[in-house]
Each structure stands twice: as structure tokens, then as C-alpha cells.
């Protein structure tokens, strides 16, 4: 017995068949929603919606790609930024609405895909279907007349061209041929879409298991891989610190090649090289990290992402006690590497801080201000503005090493303080004002900014993507066609049907007809 609901349920063979109005029980509602979601109409709509939804992420700065841009946006348009932020427009690609679109799209895809796998599996094993009664109604049709016309010639043509052929014969003569070719088109289509799901899963899962950390390393310093050694650290949701393998890496030397040969390109950097010594399970070996050439260490790939100067500075109290010593990372400000650094000396007798400018090759502007004329340290000079007062370090605030909050400080050298900024060259030792002691500019070192990443599934992303691409080629370039040939009293007829746009169908039908005409 057929229930009422079942009789209402219409299985649509084609996606563009009209959808029947549902009755109102919950079950049929769900079924209706599922039918809608897996319809090509909705899939197409979601696909176009996804394209539109991706646009705002290229207009507004994104936290993932450009966090400073977001901070700047908040500073310049605080009110509007709040509105944008509430709509997740600074995190478009992680937003609930963007995720909703692509998740619905993938559900729709899977819903579409599952039944097709079964259908295709059957089609691969089954014989080509019986011809329609009226072959003349097919998109391509040709009738050949002549008593000598034989289907054997068509059979030969079809098998030679690798069609799957079923022949029916009456006595010795063939009377009907059913042929099909191009199953790889649907195979490719299924492979493409399944591996697209594979891409999504491996990207999502890989992202959750991954981590990404940054570390600035000055020449001579050693990085020992553990959570605390990173300057910043972005673990995925499922990342476990146990994945961090023990290894260490020392930056031996950082060097830059500049172009001095070509006037059009003068002093532009051509090569950045970070020579490191890595130690993995007590095995020490040298390695070279360049842009485009990361190195692989256990559960980590190390990339070179930036560089700059780290002048080595020593501060002494009046009695000679060292209150600060070490290289200070300066942030580059322009193409000629004018760099800005902050030195905080909380351990001095009287707490003070310094804002430092570093000019690798010092020059003078017409205003008298100093500038750098070359990115290489040919004539390095450092100037220091000195501030006394509470650095705020003890309270646990203001601990950004690249910033000096001068609000609560009093400037005692440089600017409008009345005392000139201190000016040092490598090797110089200069007295600090107000009997704070001395400061020494010991040497110029370079630093490298390194990015250390780990994604255990990136190889699976790559594999899925490559399979996707091959599936795409099969599905777009291989035609699927069915051909039927029938013996008539006065000759034969050929009809053909393509499952896609098929330019060659006409030619093939013609060739089969001609082959039969010529048969002896």
C-alpha cells in the first residue's frame, strides 16, 4: 500500500523540474527543505552569494591578514568601526554569515553528490539503455538508405572508438546497436566535488591542528623551540603544545645583497640571507633561510619574513654598574632603514627610558634634521632622546617593548628639553644628562624576523587540490554521448544524444552513416 505522503513525494530526475507544494507535516517540511537545499537552483544561488560575500573582506582590513589596519580603522573611525565589527566585517572569512554560506553550499553539494555516486556506479556496470522508440527526435539523427547498408560497419566504428556497445542480432545480421561513451566525465565530476569536500575538511582540520608563531632573532641569539620562546603565537583550536618538537636554532649571520650595478635599481635589496645553525637531537648543522626558501625542522617550517638593525647598547650607572646591556631591536621606518628603537632602563638608580633613532648611513636634510641615505650601515649614527620618570613597568602595564609612553615622563635630552639629543657612533660612550651615568653604542647587529609554522595536514590539502584539478579536467573536457543504430527495412538510422554541449556529435553521426553506406 502506498501512503499518502509517499504518493506526494516526487523524485526529480532533473534539477530543473518544478517542485511540488508540500503538505504541512514536520517530516515533509524537512524533506522539502532538504530538496530545496540540494537543488541546483539553490546551489547556484549560494555560489553567487559566496562570491558577493567575499567582497567586503577585500574592502575592509581583516584581522587575519592586516591586524594593524584594523587597529588604524578603529582609531580613525571609532564609531563606524564598532558597527562594522558588530557585523563581523573585520573577520569576514571567519564570520558566521560567510561560514553559513559555504557550509550550506557544502551540505547542498554532499546532498547532491551522494545519490549521484550510486547512480554512476550502476551506470558503469549496466548496459547502455534501450533506444527511444523514435530516434528521429534525438538532437542528432540521420537515416541511411540502401539495401547493402549493414550495422556491422557501425559496430566496428563504435568499438574502434572505445564505445561500450551492446548489439542485438536477428539471425546473423545485427539489427540494433546501443552505445555509450564518456563515463569519465561523470567520474571526473564526482572526483572533483568529493575532493573539494576533502579540501574543505583538510583545510579546516589542518587549521585547527596548526600553529603559527613569530620570533625576532638577533645575530648571535639562539631560539629554543618552546611556547615561551615565541614573541607572538597563534595556536589552532585543537593544537597541543606537545607537538612542539625540541630543536634550537642560532642566527649566525644575517646578510643582504644590494644592487649597486643598475642605476634604475640602485641600493634595492636583491637577496636576504639568514645563516643559521640548527640543533636537532644533538645534531648541529648549518642552514640558510631565504625569502621563498623556508627550512624544515621537526614539526616546524621556518620562514624569513623581515629584518632590521639591532644596535648593541650598554648603560652604566655613575658608579660603573651595568644597568642595561644587550642588542635592542629597532623597527625600520623607511626604505633607507632609518630605524626607531626604545630602551627602557628600569634597573638604573633613577628609572629612565630612551627613544632612539638609528641611521645606517647618516645624512642631513636641508632642515638640519638627520636622515639615512643608504640602507647599508656605511656611516651609522644613533641619536637618543632621554626621558625620566615612571616607566610603568612595575605596574605591569606599558610593556610593549617597541613603545615608550611619554605621558608620565619628563624629557631631559632631545626635542624641546633644552639639552641636545645624544649622538653616538659605534664604539662611543656618552655621558647621560642629570648624572644618570653613561651609555655605550657597542656595535651594530642585524636581526631577522622569523615565522614558524606547523600544519600537519598541509600535504593533504595539496593532494586534495591536485585530485580536484584532475577531476575538473575530466569533467570539462570529456564528452558523454549515447548513440543508437537501428536497422530499417530500406537501410538504417542513427540517433545520438549528448549529456553536455557536444560539438562533435553531428560529425560522429555523419561518420557512422558514411561507414554504413560504404559497407559491402
Amino acid at each position, binding site marked *: 500500500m502506498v501512503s499518502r505522503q509517499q504518493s506526494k513525494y516526487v523524485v526529480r530526475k532533473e*534539477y*530543473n523540474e518544478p517542485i511540488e507544494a508540500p503538505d504541512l507535516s514536520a517530516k515533509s517540511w524537512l524533506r522539502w527543505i532538504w530538496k530545496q537545499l540540494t537543488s*541546483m*537552483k539553490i*546551489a*547556484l544561488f549560494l*555560489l*553567487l552569494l*559566496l*562570491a558577493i560575500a*567575499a*567582497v567586503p*573582506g*577585500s*574592502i575592509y*582590513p*581583516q584581522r*587575519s*591578514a*592586516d591586524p594593524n*589596519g584594523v587597529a588604524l580603522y578603529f582609531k580613525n573611525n571609532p564609531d563606524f568601526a564598532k558597527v562594522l565589527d558588530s557585523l563581523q566585517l573585520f573577520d*569576514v*572569512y571567519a564570520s558566521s554569515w560567510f561560514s553559513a554560506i559555504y557550509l550550506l553550499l557544502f551540505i547542498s553539494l554532499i546532498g547532491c553528490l551522494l545519490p549521484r555516486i550510486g547512480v554512476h556506479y550502476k551506470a558503469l556496470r549496466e548496459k547502455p539503455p534501450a533506444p527511444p522508440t523514435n530516434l528521429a527526435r534525438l538532437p542528432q539523427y540521420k537515416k541511411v538508405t540502401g539495401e547493402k547498408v549493414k550495422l556491422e560497419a557501425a559496430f566496428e566504428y563504435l568499438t574502434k572508438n572505445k564505445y561500450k556497445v551492446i548489439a542485438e542480432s536477428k539471425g546473423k545480421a545485427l539489427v540494433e546497436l546501443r552505445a555509450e561513451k564518456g563515463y569519465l566525465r561523470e567520474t571526473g565530476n564526482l572526483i572533483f566535488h568529493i575532493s573539494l569536500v576533502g579540501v574543505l575538511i583538510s*583545510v579546516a582540520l589542518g587549521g585547527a591542528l596548526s600553529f*603559527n608563531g613569530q620570533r625576532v632573532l638577533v645575530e648571535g641569539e639562539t631560539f629554543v623551540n618552546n611556547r615561551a620562546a615565541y614573541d607572538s603565537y597563534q595556536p589552532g583550536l585543537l593544537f597541543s603544545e606537545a607537538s612542539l618538537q625540541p630543536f634550537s636554532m642560532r642566527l649566525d649571520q644575517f646578510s643582504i*645583497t644590494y*644592487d*649597486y*650595478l*643598475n642605476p*634604475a*635599481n640602485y641600493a*634595492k*635589496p*636583491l*637577496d*636576504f640571507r639568514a645563516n643559521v645553525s640548527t640543533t636537532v637531537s644533538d645534531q648541529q648543522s648549518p642552514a640558510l633561510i*631565504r*625569502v*621563498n*626558501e*623556508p627550512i624544515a625542522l621537526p614539526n616546524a*617550517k621556518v*620562514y624569513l*619574513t623581515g629584518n632590521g638593525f639591532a644596535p648593541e647598547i650598554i648603560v652604566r650607572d655613575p658608579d660603573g654598574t651595568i644597568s642595561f646591556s644587550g642588542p635592542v631591536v629597532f623597527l625600520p621606518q623607511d626604505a633607507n632603514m632609518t630605524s626607531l628603537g626604545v630602551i627602557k632602563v628600569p634597573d638604573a638608580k633613577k628609572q629612565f627610558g630612551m627613544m632612539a633613532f638609528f641611521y645606517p648611513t647618516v645624512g642631513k636634510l636641508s632642515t638640519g634634521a638627520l636622515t639615512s641615505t643608504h640602507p647599508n650601515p656605511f656611516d651609522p649614527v644613533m641619536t637618543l632622546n632621554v626621558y625620566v620618570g615612571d616607566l610603568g613597568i612595575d605596574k605591569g602595564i606599558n610593556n610593549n617593548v617597541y613603545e615608550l609612553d611619554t605621558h608620565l615622563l619628563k624629557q631631559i635630552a632631545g626635542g624641546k628639553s633644552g639639552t641636545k639629543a645624544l649622538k653616538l657612533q659605534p664604539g662611543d660612550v656618552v655621558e647621560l644628562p642629570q648624572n644618570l651615568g653613561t651609555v655605550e653604542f657597542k656595535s651594530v647587529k642585524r636581526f631577522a624576523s622569523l*615565522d614558524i*609554522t606547523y600544519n600537519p595536514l*598541509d600535504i593533504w*590539502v*595539496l593532494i586534495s*587540490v*591536485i585530485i580536484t*584539478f584532475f577531476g*575538473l*579536467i575530466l569533467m*570539462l*573536457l570529456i564528452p558523454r554521448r549515447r548513440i543508437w543504430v537501428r536497422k530499417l527495412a530500406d537501410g538504417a538510422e542513427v540517433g545520438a544524444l549528448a549529456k*553536455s*554541449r557536444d*560539438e562533435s556529435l553531428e560529425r560522429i553521426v555523419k561518420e557512422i552513416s558514411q561507414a554504413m553506406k560504404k559497407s559491402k
Partner: protein
Amino acid sequence: MNPALINQELATTSRILVLIALTVYVISFLVLTVSLANRAKATKKEQTASALRVENIGLILAGLATLIHGAGVLTRGIAANRVPWANMYEFSISGAFVVSAIYLIALFFKDIRFIATFVIGFVVLVIGSANTLFYVQVESLMPALQDYWLVIHVSVAILGTAFFTIAAALAALLLIKSGKSKSKVLKVFPDVEKLEKLSYQFNVIGFILWTFTLIAGAIWADKAWHRFWGWDTKEVWTFIIWTIYAAYLHATTTRGWEGKKAAWLTLIGFSAVIFNFTIVNLFFKGLHVYSGL
């Protein structure tokens, strides 16, 4: 890496060759336009035949321009000691060359002479704007670009763009043809179905090449930028373009979108390609800062 000497004199020669090519393209464009107008006016067979002869002259001129253009692109590469597509100017002249070359090669396989005016017109527009808006001196590659993926990723992007361009020209023609205009020129062009088929075929090849560009870009980004995908503005737009053309393929193959609707989708996709190359390159902040401007 030791700096390679840039040959500025050869770069100047290259620029002159490109400008000569531009001039020949312009003449070819005018000849093709005249031929088109004559064919539209033709009422007798002889008139059509003479218009077709004029068209052949136009196409021969286009071929000549393409050869000179190719020499210009080649010398730019030799002058710079690298592939000639490292900034917007170079990408434009190389891209225009590929559009023109692919079109002329396609003529041997498909009779698409009727869009010659559009394709050559587009090439003139690209070279013209490259020369006036995007021109930069030859410079060495910045370290981020010194990689073999520059050869693979960008050349395939150029090729894909060329196919999309021709498909878009055909789609535009389809829209004009199926519009209300009763201009006589329209009878010169093939029927809407033929235009749609051709446009579809170019889009399919374009889509395969674009997919490859996207994948190659991700593999390179994993080497150069420590992640294979990071929603950089250029990545976003490459994704948007890919999605639009994917929608086009679904619409035409399974939803039975035909004629005008499919043509509009092609033009939307192509607008995104042009937007990606111009507005995104020049005004959007991102990691693909290679316009050289």
C-alpha cells in the same frame, strides 16, 4: 645572488617595438572596422567578397603587429634578465600579446574572424593604457618574486585571462545581437547559439587555467608567505572570479541557462577579472604589491 646587469638600451628598444606594434594594431583595427562596415552595407556578393578581402588585410596586419609585439615582449625580458611579467606594465604587454596570439591561432581552428575588431580593439586599449598609465623602467626582481613559480603562476594567469577575454567579447556580441538594435552590422555576426557555444568553450579553457593559477598561487604562497591561503585582497578576488565562473558553468550545464543570462554572467566574471587587475592592484592594500607604480 649577484645582481644581473639590466640592459636599459634594450629596454628602450623594447618600448619602441611595443609602440610600433601599437601603431600597426591601430591600423589593423581601422581596416577591420572598415571591412565590418562594408560587409554590413553589402547587398551584392561581390561587395561582400571585397569586404572579406579587406578583412584579410586587417588580419594580416594584426599578425604583423603581433610579431612585432612579441619581439617587444621578448626584448623586455632579455633586457631585464627574467620573465617579462613582473609589474603591471609588463603584465599588460605580455597579456595583450597572448590575447592577440591566442586569437590569431584560434582562427586556424575556428572561424571567429567576426570578433577581430573587438579583440584587436581590446589589445589596442591595453597596450595604450600600459604605455601611458603603467610604464616603469626595468628593475630587478625583489627577493619575493625570485622564484620559478613566477614563471608558472603568472604565465598561466595571463593565458587564462586571454581566454576569458575572448569569451567575454563573444558574450558581448551575443548581447548586442539578441538586443533590440536593428543595425545592419549584426547580420555579419553568427547566430546567438553559435556565439554562445563559442563563448562557452573559451570560458571552459579559461576556467581550467584560472583554477591552475589559483592552485599554483597557493603553492607559491605556502613557500613565500608561510601559508597557502590567507585571504589577501588578490587571493580574495581570484577566489571571487573562480566562484563566478564556477556558477557560470553550473548555470549553463545543469540549469540550462542560455543566451543572454549566461552572457551576462560571463561579462560579470570578466569585469571581476579586470577589476582584479586594475583597481585591486592599484588601490587595495595587500601582499601582491607588484604593480611597480
